[in-house]
């Protein structure tokens, strides 16, 4: 660890030994540009830009969901109200029809 620290110090010394000064006029150019540009003073949009982006998105999603809900809802099939069983005695020209309804009670004793 100590060896690493010594080496780090040596590398740091060598890296820092080559130092260039800021070019002449660069600072003035930056200062001039900085003051000529309009500073950023819209904290409301900065703070709420995420919320502002999320709200319309959420609203659109909700609207789409509400519109699609009836289409996505599982449609109920037709309800069976009665079962018909039909027999035909052709030679006697008789047709027997049994109609089974929900209120039909089988094996009910009087």
């Amino acid at each position, binding site marked *: 660890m100590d060896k690493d620290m010594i080496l780090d110090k040596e590398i*740091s010394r*060598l*890296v*820092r*030994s080559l130092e*260039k000064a800021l070019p002449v006029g660069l600072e003035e150019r930056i200062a001039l540009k*900085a003051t000529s540009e309009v*500073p*950023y003073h819209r904290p409301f949009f900065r703070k709420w830009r995420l919320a502002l982006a999320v709200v319309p998105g959420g609203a659109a999603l909700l609207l789409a969901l509400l519109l699609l809900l009836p289409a996505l809802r599982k449609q109920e099939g037709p309800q069976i109200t009665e079962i018909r069983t039909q027999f035909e005695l052709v030679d006697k020209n008789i047709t027997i029809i049994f109609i089974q309804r929900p209120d039909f009670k089988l094996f009910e004793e009087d």
Partner: protein
Amino acid sequence: MKIDGDCLESSGSFIFNAEKARSLRRTKMKDKEEACVSQAAFWNLMEPVKLRLYNFVLKSLNFATDADDVYQETVLHAFQYFASFRKDRDFRAWIYSIAHNEIKNHFRKSRNLTASPNIGALMASPNDSTGALVREVFRFAAQLRPKEREVFFLFYESGFSIPEIEGITGLKEGYIKLLLSQARNNLKEALGVHHG
């Protein structure tokens, strides 16, 4: 007709409200004063950082001439977004994270900055023993990928700690440690050659 004050529209009619106008003017003046104070505070904070920051940008870009532009963009962006700088944060780390983004953007735009710098031409006394070692260090740094070179110079040029580099670059601590360890191993050999 000029009225010295603000007229507020209220349900179709204009109501003269001098007190409101004075209050608004006071707020505007206060804002202006605060902006001036803020600008002065920015340049005051920049003063001790600028030279190291410039050298960090310069070295991270392999002494490319574009370094001036990248440094300029860094300072301008920092100035522009200074209002968002939290006073409890370290200004140095904050501005270096802006520089990191600018360097990243620069390399994204121009991928052909692989030319090694002529370190000898940049040095005051390139022929002494230290000069050879410096050349060796920068030759090694020039071979690194941009991200790795940034970590190298954040540590050795700017003197940031590993957690600070993690905060600036968003790289994992383990990866930073690995990069620095590789740099040490490589330079140990390279510097060892010159030490004898």
